């Protein structure tokens, strides 16, 4: 059958369905990361572990007018989606770029947007699972009672707000080496999480850190998430969204520069 087909020009065959390529890219990117404990465990286990320790095991006092178990869902939710997005894009892109696998894919007819879309969908799926697991724990063991609509809006906010961190991951992935990428991610991820009040309630942070926080994207995402459960403090929602979109655009710009740099290296 195949020996017959070689005698015909390939253009007579219909082009493969781009949607199907994107679907398979996303599916296998997801499976790949799910089976890599460094990714799946670190991005899903840590937010859950923090929630169990600081939310469920330690006391049940109130923070910002709501119970700790509710308060920590937006906080660790932001922490979780940020980790899933950063590691999912930056670490895999840096490794693919640095160790030749991206070149194998580029030599094939795969459209480049399928590659990026695959990573995006994979990150969004992990982010969604992260938030749903926190909510489930809260509902089951933390005495959390949120109306279904509020819970749904919380999930949507966090998942939509994870996209700027995918952009940030691309920016890091284009500049970090395959082995240094995890370290570079953590240099941004952990201090930003702390200063944005994801580990310690924002009002307990020193004043100068609170002043820095308004420049940090996780602060804006967490404030949007807190608003959904009635614990928002900072300015209007629109300002937070604008900050996140601006941040995403800057990151995409940096990623584009990195992409151009790679192209130039190839002549």
């Amino acid at each position, binding site marked *: 059958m195949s*020996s017959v087909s*070689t*005698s015909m020009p390939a253009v007579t065959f219909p082009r493969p369905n781009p949607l199907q390529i994107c679907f398979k890219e996303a599916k296998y990117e997801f499976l790949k990361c799910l089976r890599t404990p460094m990714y799946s465990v670190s991005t899903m286990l840590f937010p859950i572990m923090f929630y169990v320790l600081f939310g469920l095991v330690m006391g049940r006092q109130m923070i910002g007018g709501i119970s700790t178990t509710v308060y920590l869902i937006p906080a660790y939710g932001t922490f979780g989606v940020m980790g899933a997005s950063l590691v999912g894009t930056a670490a895999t892109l840096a490794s693919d770029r640095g160790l030749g696998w991206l*070149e194998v894919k580029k030599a*094939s007819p795969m459209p480049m947007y399928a590659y990026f879309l695959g990573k995006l969908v994979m990150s969004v799926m992990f982010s969604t699972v992260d938030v749903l697991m926190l909510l489930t724990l809260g509902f089951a063991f933390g005495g959390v009672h949120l109306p279904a609509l509020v819970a749904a809006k919380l999930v949507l906010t966090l998942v939509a707000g994870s996209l700027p961190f995918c952009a940030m991951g691309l920016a890091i992935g284009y500049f970090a080496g395959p082995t240094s990428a995890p370290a570079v991610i953590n240099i941004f991820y952990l201090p930003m999480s702390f200063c944005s009040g994801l580990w310690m309630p924002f009002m307990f942070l020193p004043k100068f850190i609170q002043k820095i926080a308004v420049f940090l994207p996780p602060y804006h995402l967490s404030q949007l998430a807190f608003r959904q459960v009635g614990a928002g403090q900072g300015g209007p929602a629109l300002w937070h969204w604008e900050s996140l979109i601006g941040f995403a655009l800057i990151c995409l710009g940096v990623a584009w520069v990195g992409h151009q740099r790679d192209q130039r290296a190839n002549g």
Partner: protein
Amino acid sequence: MPTAQVLPIHGRRSHQTVAQLQDVTKNFGSVRALLDFNFSVRTGELTALLGPNGAGKTTAIKLLLGLLRPTSGHVSVFGADPSQAITRTRVGAMLQVGRVPETLRVAEHIDLFSSYYPNPLSMSETLAIAGLEDLRQRRFGDLSGGQKQRVLFALAICGNPDLLFLDEPTVGLDVAARHLLWEEIRHLLSRGKTVVLTTHYLEEADALADRVAVINKGSIIAEGTPSEIKARTAGKKIRCITQLPPAVIRNIKGVMDVRADREAVVIQANDAESALRGLLSLDLEISGIEVTSAGLEDAFLALTRDDSQGDQNV
């Protein structure tokens, strides 16, 4: 539609050019990888790019795959730009890669790559050609070196391409695995595919290639069939243990060159019989005589040792 530019494949030795590097120079910063490089690939043939590490073989392949752009000169594949998606649907590539996603299974890798192509082979065909039927559910990270190379080979062929680029396909394989891959490559040639292969195993070029281009330091220094290349260094090699000084051996009829090789000498002879008669009559103690044909390896060493002579042969 670029339909008119797509060349039909008629089978082996129709001598149509399907891919070409014309006067290509490629610099990486101040490092010159290729200089005024002319290379063409003919339909249905296996062309081997043979050269030492760093000669420019991989650069030539990446130019033909559209992964690199030439500093100057022209690259065409199926009469078009190799970086166009439509060209890439007819091309398969096996590159040297540092790391392949290890947690995906063999069949999953093939399923994904097959989806990129308009007319891929079926999963079972791909697995059969690459000899991976028993390994389809294994994760890439659990495979041996030879099995990993076979998966990369499978990804190169799964789209049923007309033109296949194999960059050092058997590097690091043991003899059995190498011969298995050779069989798979021969099988593809018998189905009318065109193959470009880089190698520094001379035996490999000799065993597989219709044509060989010998590259050194970014230029082609010799081109022809394996036997034409071998004919460059005519004659035979005689290895023996003798007390005769090299100057004396060099004066024997039929001897071209002599060099010491541990306790023995290796004599390059264009007339082995005369050389042997001379040797035996001059040294009654001579021992350990071996006579072998000069292989592609000797031709290759001779060609890459003497650049000035090689340049005239282009």
